[in-house]
């Protein structure tokens, strides 16, 4: 594991920072810093030397000016729910956590805009506007904990992004503190951009441009009603063919999620959610829109599922049945913890029509490496999340789990897909970047990064592999909440 670098974080620097944020916003005791040694990618650990919890953009600006003058790298952190090691300090001794900046600043229903500080929890945005019939569309499964700032860093998705888009489609403006401490406002409440789309370039930059402190987000109108279906299949092949059949028929559901047998059993063991234990795969299909049309649409989707081989299609009869299905889906990762001491979640993407093929490939890889791999994922987007089970006490199994994960990613790329649909590159997938990007692509991307951060001190050693370097991943990810 990389060290925290040759920091100039001496006692004078700490005193300067303490004077800015105050005693209650600074953590320097190693035992307390241990909490911050990883995000949801728990296998690589590296605690910062100092944690700051500032309350405002002005404080962050003052902090970054000190760090800039002293040439000290830093890493921003939201809630630490990331899944690719995005906020793991790698050569960055100072961690700056935005969780205290958690105010919703303004809600403008007439314009469908909300302005928030970056430490606001994702779900709190929707909670604040729900009673007026609006919601904030990106809904990562960690939405009860993850922050808007973290979502912006990772360009987070979620089940309902199939219809409503990912974070970048909902971010109009940002306030960012650049690594030299300057505060810049980029974009604004207007949809049309003036000049280069700098806010668009920062969403998904994984915290390498500076620290986002404020965001103007779009609100989405709640659909009139929803219909949530559970389609039950003998195997994953028919389930994934159903996904393509639905989309090809011109229906864009709010979400289409798939779980295979291993996941179904884990969920049933843990939560008794009422899923059929003997099924090979299930799809949760949620339709939303004009109430008058939903029953006909649900009937059409059910027919398509049956035609593709579903043995049964159930319609959630009320809100509690709907909630139970979503609870099963969103808690699937927690349930997997019962199946093995450790597991690693991959995040690949393939063109939707290649889903049957990639699932066959994943099964073959599992066989080849003598591993159990479960699948629970956003099928409508072709965004797979294979979960590789292993026991970290078994060094050989751990090695096989890592290699199997990489082979799955290589298979995704070979099918015209991508390395990550929503979890980010972080440190986890840097070594795979050359599979999809040429040296010229990576050069231009690092030039883009240096527009914001010329000295590369904001979240250093992330996303883009250093030329000629080989990033070694020690072991795959363990228990995580998706």
């Amino acid at each position, binding site marked *: 594991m990389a060290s925290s670098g040759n920091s100039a974080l001496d006692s004078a620097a700490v005193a300067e920072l303490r004077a800015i944020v105050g005693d209650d916003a600074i953590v320097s005791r190693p035992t307390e810093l241990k909490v911050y040694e990883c995000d949801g990618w728990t296998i690589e650990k590296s605690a910062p030397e100092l944690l700051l919890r500032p309350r405002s953009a002005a404080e962050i600006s003052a902090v970054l000016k000190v760090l800039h003058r002293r040439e000290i790298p830093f890493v921003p952190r939201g809630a630490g729910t990331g899944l690719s090691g995005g906020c793991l300090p790698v050569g960055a001794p100072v961690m700056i956590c935005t969780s205290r900046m958690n105010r919703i600043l303004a809600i*403008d229903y*007439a*314009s469908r*805009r909300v302005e928030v500080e970056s430490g606001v929890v994702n779900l709190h945005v929707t909670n604040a506007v729900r009673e007026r*019939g609006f919601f904030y569309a990106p809904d990562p499964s960690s939405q009860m904990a993850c922050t808007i700032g973290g979502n912006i860093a990772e*360009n987070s998705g979620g089940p309902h*992004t199939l219809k409503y*888009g990912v974070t*970048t*489609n909902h971010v109009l*403006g940002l306030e960012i503190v*650049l690594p030299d401490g300057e505060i*810049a*406002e980029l974009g*604004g*409440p*207007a*949809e*049309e*951009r*003036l*000049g*280069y*789309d*700098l806010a*668009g*370039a920062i969403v*998904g930059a994984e915290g390498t441009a500076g620290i986002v402190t404020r965001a103007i987000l779009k609100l989405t*109108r709640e*659909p009139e009603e929803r219909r949530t279906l559970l389609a039950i299949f003998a195997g994953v092949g028919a389930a994934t063919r159903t996904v393509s059949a639905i*989309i090809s028929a*011109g229906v864009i559901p709010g979400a289409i999620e798939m779980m295979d047998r291993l996941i179904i059993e884990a969920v049933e063991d843990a939560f008794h959610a009422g899923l059929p234990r003997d099924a090979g795969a299930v799809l949760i299909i949620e339709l939303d*829109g*004009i109430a008058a*049309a939903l029953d*006909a*649409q649900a009937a059409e989707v059910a027919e398509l599922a049956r035609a593709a081989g579903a043995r049964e299609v159930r319609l959630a009869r009320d809100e509690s049945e709907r909630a139970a299905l979503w609870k099963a889906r969103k808690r699937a990762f927690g349930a997997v913890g019962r199946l093995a001491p450790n597991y690693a979640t991959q995040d690949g993407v393939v*063109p*939707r*029509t290649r889903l049957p093929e990639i699932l066959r490939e994943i099964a073959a890889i599992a066989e080849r490496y003598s591993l159990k791999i479960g699948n629970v994922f956003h099928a409508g987007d072709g965004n797979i999340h294979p979960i590789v089970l292993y026991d970290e006490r078994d060094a050989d199994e751990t090695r096989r789990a890592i290699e199997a994960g990489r082979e799955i990613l290589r298979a995704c790329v070979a099918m*015209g897909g991508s390395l*990550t*649909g*929503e979890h980010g*590159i972080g440190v986890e*997938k840097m070594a795979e970047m050359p599979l*999809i*990007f*040429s040296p*010229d*692509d*990576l050069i*231009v*991307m690092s030039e*883009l*990064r*240096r*527009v*914001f951060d010329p000295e590369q001190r904001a979240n250093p050693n992330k*996303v883009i592999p250093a030329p000629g370097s080989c990033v070694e991943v020690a072991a795959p990810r363990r228990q995580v909440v998706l």
Partner: protein
Amino acid sequence: MPPALHDPANLARAFAPIVGEANLRPPSGAELRCAKLMVAPSSADEIAEVVRGCESDRITLAPIGAGRTLAEIRSAPADIGISLARMNRIVAYEPDDMTIVAEAGATLAELDAAMAAHGQWLPIDPPRPELTAMGAMVAGARFGPSRLSEGTARDLLIGVRFAGHGGRLVHGGGRVVKNVAGYDLMKVMTGSFGTLGIITETTFRVRPRAARRLVATMRFSDAASSFRAARTLHDAVPLTHLEVASPPVAAALGLAEEFTLIAGCGGSPVEADYLRARIPEILGANCAIAGGAEADAFHHRLRDFDFAASSAELLAATAPAELPALLAEVGGAWLAFAGSGVARIFLNLRAAGGLDRMVGALRTRARDARGHVRVSRIIPELRGGIEIFDRPAAPAMNLMRRMKTAFDPSGVFNPGCFVGGL
């Protein structure tokens, strides 16, 4: 190359070996305002070689589809125009994946024709799709009424290839609809007006076409009531587009010369039937609803709308709720995309001073509302020294300068006409 050597004959000698003599020609029509010589490469590799030639001799170059975008923003022609006319292939269309890959010179009309048999379209509807090349649509951030429900190029572009500095052929994104690998070069190129590189290929996600399209219109005696009704309707039912037209624009669209709310919607036959019954309940019985061929024809009129009598067109952008107050200062002819906070404003000022003052006043008002105003079309006699783009605040402008320098260190990509003179 000293400036004297930048005359068309010398430029032709420099680029003939790369693209062949037959693919050089003098500019015509709108191109005259964009470039001194048109160079038509057949591939990204040829473009890369042209870029390298331009950089070593400080020859400025401008990418050109139909020439409309840059004709409006360049005050003097660039040395060469890169015509993308020969790069007009649809590279791949996967109806079941709902993605399409096209070279930068392919037009929106060509893409939609290719997708029609599968009931799909690229739901970006700027004026004149037959003249809208993909590269220009992305670089010029062109849009139409459907931005309300479908978004714009920035939302639908999932992959991009471009020739950057040093002739580097660069790509961002890919061919899958969900992808966060690497920095988002799609956002960087969208709306960059050819100042960061030459887009060679674009990949989009596409959407199913609605089986039925409806257009509702309703007349009002004043703008404020039209905008209020627009919001009420928007909050009540899903709409595909939503406009308010001022009286002269309504008349030019073939409607009565009054403030007019225009709302598009549609979907399956069941949805369309429901909406046809529901909208009058919300707006009142005197709204008119058209369907079928009539609705399609109206959508095309709205999409292609151009107020021929005007001397200049502005594009104002604010938060949607701020737009009515801004337009109240204009009077006259405008078409507001009410749900998106964007308006096309048509001015008929014939004196440069009057236009300057009007643009200045609107910019001040728009900035107060954290918005901005662009001159999107102007007759050549008024072009003069008018600033086409509003000025971003200093910290953002500094970053934009750094962006330009990073992507175009030699300063050859369509220089001198973007924000802050970039």
